[in-house]
């Protein structure tokens, strides 16, 4: 191979391109995307690598780092867990993005597109027959057991017309290129296809890193697809401007990141089952404004879990009564409940002839056709060839009696296990399929400056719109670290890759913006679900508590340094600071400890004391994670930074000065976060709840400080600590030229409405917030939380610093806590009329 034959077009650095391609060692027995059967690189790949090698090796590495950094910063992640109801929080993994996209030419893509649309239409017709007249069964074209064996065949859906007249709204096909060079459908995703959001994020990361290359290569854009998808969802509803929800199983879900990402990108309301309630045949969202009707639900929960009353009784993820609303046709579920029945392996071998029956066409893209062992002839064939086939569950899952959750390779079994497998095939053939082990084509991946071929599966997405099916021009490519790629899941070792479709002509840059005359101008983004409000509130409280804890630690460290220097044994401030830390759980059970650097370090870093700065940040991050679609990527990044700052990374004992420094550095991050929240967050209800949480927490803490550090004969060290904690040193010293005195300090810290750290200031802000939040009834009567805050404001307005004793301050504090309860009872889920549902069961 010489550079001239390799590079038909002109490239700036043919020698670099040549070197890169020469190092690419193909795997035998499998076709490759980059190198054709003639041994030459394909032209569309040359466009990519030719452009890439315009950059030096160092530059390329730097660009890759940019994309990796983007992935880290935006927090793209997925969890490794399969049980959505597991108690333990599964570990979150950073997203492994391959640096080299899969590149396909437009001509080839058009064929794929047409094939996927044909298949989507076929599957839609198949669902309509399965849940409708069932002609395929009565005509003997489809054995009923192929359908009834699936846990996703939902009998309550039988005879129910899908609201909106469509079962599938989003469909995905997993494609692989076989040894014959053709694309094959390896499986269908009809339940709740995942990956489109990840594909979008992959695109953002890679196109940022290689912006010129991306622009020059005429890569087809993804945004218009998502726009049509959203419009398609909206068109299903019975109302104009419908409320569209994305129903997630919650933060435990493997792909929760994608749910938050898509909700944010498409402007959908992210809800969990507990956010929804069925009343009078309609599905409602519990919001801070009461129940609001949900028109369309794009679901990411398995249908079987969707309604604990009529479907899986063990589900905690669903909405009791959802099936009834579906039967009433009052809510559109996308995809329709029961669509998942088409994902069964057992069905695949029937698809080709069903295609001829249902749509009168042969499949444009063939699918693999495993032998379903429910049929005598197929079973006999599989029995004969157990040695060289892979045996898999006919309806997902593994082979009964075999530990693996995937396919069992006959060749790898012991004689005893082989006999056991044969008996299972004999007795439970209906549960099994046998399939050939296919070699799929490979695509180049970047491995430390060299290209390495790896097998892959490409997921292609199609969305139903008013104008027919639209296919996302791109895809979600999963690259296996093993050579058999039929079941690449995003688990250990696998990578994902972007898919670039190279248009023959320049593509329209961005068409995300809708035409101006079709947009109704609005300033509010819609109602806030109660659960989101709850989490925003707690995010606010935790963040404020983190800040308070850090201030105490900083103050304690400073006092210890000072005490050490002056040998001033008069002040008891360090001990009092330590008592505060103990009181809110930053330190373990109270012993007669002496305030020390060790103690301060523990309050900072401990991962077992729930009130330590570290644990509080973790709690804040957890609250943030379930409202992630409402926070900007910046906010999330700063939260991650905050977590890094309070993480215990030292094995050694920390000195007072080091602790002081750590607390100070962490406080810089909390300030950045406060700034971001105040300056960048839109003043919607979510922001108000965050701030309400923060204000209540700050007011309560400040009351506590005052009670802890002021008595009529407080030593100046105590008062000094109080001014530190309340961040009022400068204000005090500017206002009062005398030394520290109790009454002026109490006035400044508690009653002065102009001091942003005072209790009175917090109460004023709380009053403003509660005024702005929507009332439940239109009768004009103040609600409980509103009355409480008025009372508090009046009491504080009338109080005088000279007579302000601890009893009064304690009363403020308790009223603040009642206010917190009242806010919770009014706006959040734990109100008396929204207790979590329990299941009743009769005795048999």
């Amino acid at each position, binding site marked *: 191979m010489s550079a001239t034959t390799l590079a038909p077009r002109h490239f700036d650095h043919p020698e670099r391109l040549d070197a890169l391609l020469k190092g690419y060692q193909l795997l035998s027995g499998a076709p490759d995307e980059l190198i054709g059967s003639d041994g030459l690189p394909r032209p569309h790949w040359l466009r990519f690598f030719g452009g890439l090698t315009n950059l030096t090796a160092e530059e390329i590495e730097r660009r890759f780092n940019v994309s990796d950094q983007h992935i880290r910063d935006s927090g793209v992640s997925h969890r490794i867990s399969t049980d959505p109801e597991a108690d333990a929080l599964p570990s979150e993994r950073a997203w492994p993005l391959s640096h080299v996209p899969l590149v396909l030419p437009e001509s080839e893509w058009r064929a794929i597109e047409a094939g996927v649309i044909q298949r989507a239409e076929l599957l839609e017709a198949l669902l309509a027959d399965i849940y409708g007249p069932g002609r395929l069964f009565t005509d003997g074209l489809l054995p009923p057991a192929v359908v009834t064996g699936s846990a996703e065949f939902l*009998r309550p859906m039988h005879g129910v017309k899908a609201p909106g007249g469509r079962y599938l709204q989003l469909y995905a096909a997993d494609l692989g290129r076989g040894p014959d060079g053709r694309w094959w459908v390896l499986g269908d995703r009809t339940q709740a296809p995942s990956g489109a959001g990840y594909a979008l994020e992959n695109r953002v990361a890679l196109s940022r890193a290689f912006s010129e290359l991306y622009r020059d290569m005429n890569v087809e854009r993804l945004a218009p697809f998502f726009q049509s998808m959203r419009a398609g969802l909206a068109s299903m509803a019975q109302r104009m401007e419908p409320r569209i929800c994305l129903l997630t199983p919650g933060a435990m879900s493997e792909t929760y990141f994608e749910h938050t990402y898509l909700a944010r990108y498409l402007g959908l309301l992210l809800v969990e089952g507990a956010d929804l309630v069925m009343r009078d045949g309609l599905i409602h969202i519990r919001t801070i404004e009461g129940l609001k009707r949900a028109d369309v639900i794009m679901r990411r929960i398995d249908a079987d879990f969707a309604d604990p009353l009529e479907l899986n009784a063990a589900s905690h993820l669903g909405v009791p009564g959802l099936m009834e609303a579906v039967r009433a046709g009052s809510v559109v579920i996308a995809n329709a409940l029961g669509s998942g029945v088409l994902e069964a392996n057992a069905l695949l071998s029937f698809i080709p002839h069903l295609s001829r029956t249902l749509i009168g066409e042969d499949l444009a893209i063939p699918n693999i056709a495993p032998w379903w062992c429910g049929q005598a002839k197929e079973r006999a064939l599989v029995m004969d060839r157990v040695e060289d086939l892979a045996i898999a569950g006919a309806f997902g899952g593994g082979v009964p009696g075999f530990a693996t959750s995937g396919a069992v390779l006959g060749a790898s079994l012991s004689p005893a296990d082989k006999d056991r497998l044969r008996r299972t095939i004999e007795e439970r053939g209906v549960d099994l399929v046998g399939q050939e082990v296919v070699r799929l084509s490979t695509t180049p991946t970047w491995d430390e400056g060299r290209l390495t071929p790896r097998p892959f599966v490409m997921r292609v997405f199609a969305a139903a719109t008013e104008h027919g099916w639209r296919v996302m021009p791109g895809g979600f490519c999963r690259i296996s670290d093993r050579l058999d790629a039929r079941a690449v899941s995003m688990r250990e070792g696998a990578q994902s890759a972007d898919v670039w479709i190279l248009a023959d002509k320049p593509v329209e840059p961005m068409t995300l913006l809708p035409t101006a005359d079709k947009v109704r101008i609005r300033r509010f983004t819609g109602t806030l679900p109660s659960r989101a409000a709850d989490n925003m509130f707690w995010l606010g409280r935790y963040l404020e508590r983190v800040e308070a804890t850090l201030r105490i630690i900083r103050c304690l460290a400073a006092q210890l340094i000072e005490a050490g220097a002056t040998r001033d044994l008069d002040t008891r401030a360090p001990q009092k600071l330590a008592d505060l830390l103990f009181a809110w759980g930053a330190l373990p059970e109270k012993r007669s400890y002496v305030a020390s650097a060790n103690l301060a370090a523990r309050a900072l870093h401990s991962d077992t004391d729930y009130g330590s700065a570290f644990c509080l940040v973790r709690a804040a991050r957890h609250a943030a994670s379930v409202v992630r679609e409402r926070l900007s990527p910046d906010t999330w990044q700063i939260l991650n930074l905050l977590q890094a700052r309070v993480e215990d990374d030292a094995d050694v004992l920390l000195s007072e000065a080091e602790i002081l420094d750590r607390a100070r550095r962490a406080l810089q991050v909390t300030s950045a976060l406060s700034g971001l929240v105040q300056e960048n967050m839109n003043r919607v209800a979510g922001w108000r709840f965050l701030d309400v949480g923060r204000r209540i927490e700050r007011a309560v803490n400040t009351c506590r400080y005052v009670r802890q550090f002021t008595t009529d004969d407080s030593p100046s060290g105590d008062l000094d600590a109080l001014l530190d904690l309340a961040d009022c040193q400068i204000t005090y010293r500017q206002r009062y030229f005398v030394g520290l005195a109790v009454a002026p300090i109490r006035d400044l810290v508690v009653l002065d409405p102009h001091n942003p750290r005072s209790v009175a200031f917090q109460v004023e802000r709380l009053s403003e917030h509660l005024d702005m939040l929507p009332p439940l009834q239109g009768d004009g009567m103040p609600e409980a939380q509103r009355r409480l805050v008025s009372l508090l404001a009046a009491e504080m307005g009338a109080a005088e610093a000279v007579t302000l004793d601890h009893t009064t301050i304690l009363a403020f504090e308790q009223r603040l806590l009642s206010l917190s309860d009242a806010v919770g009872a009014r706006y959040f889920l734990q109100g008396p009329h929204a207790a979590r549902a329990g299941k009743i069961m009769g005795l048999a």
Partner: protein
Amino acid sequence: MIYDVTHVTAYEYGSPITFARCALRLTPQTGAGQVVLSAEVATEPPAATRSERICFFGNRVTMMTFDTPHTEARFIAKARVDVRRPPLPMALPDETLDRVREEAIANHGLSPTSPAHFLFPSHRAPDYPPATSYVRESFPPERAALDGALDLIGRIRRDFKYDPDATKVSTPLSEAFEGRHGVCQDFAHVMISGLRGLGVPAAYVSGYIRTIPPSGRPRLEGADATHAWVNVWCGQRVGWVGLDPTNAIPADDDHIVLATGRDYSDASPVDGIIFGSREQDVDVSVDVIPVG
């Protein structure tokens, strides 16, 4: 035989229920050897909304909501049913297990009684290899399937201890199987799971059984019980046969069918979601009185 059945399910809650949504399968249906002469379901407190539908398996389901706070609820079902079930033929059909298995997979459409619905694991009767092994012992090669199934109910009756305190409604199959104890519901699930494991379609039946008081003693009020047994599909020619593993008898004129499904969760008499209380006590009383 004509029976008057009264079935009362009473709940007491730890704290007031503010809202409840219930699905009741308390109305028997005509068919499979019985004719329903009259049936009604009443509740205390009265339901706020009420609707009826026939579920996929042909059971009558009464959907109700309650929206006034209450700490006690009673569901009272009354029915008069005429039961005339043909006895099993003296000469048992000779279809073998292999034949039943093969015919089960053949196409019978998607109708509610199609064996295809009852071939696969379900939530309450999951695939459980120990139960399959246990059941397999009743089916040596060449033995007729129904003969094997009759042997099986005899073994279950001998090997399992009837013990209402050993299991609850929510006890998983594996626990009842390992302890070899439980109630009718557990025995039915064990039998269903094991039969399906061998490729034999099996369905869950909920209903009532008349209990005959010991001779010379009067019948006690509320002494009867809700009951559960199994329908086994014995091939195309024979179809479904009701077998009661708790009593080791075929379902006969003493059995009154309430609902049928893949397992308990398709056929449970009272099901629902309540808001407001976690604690609840349930008391069930059943009277099955022959009236002629």
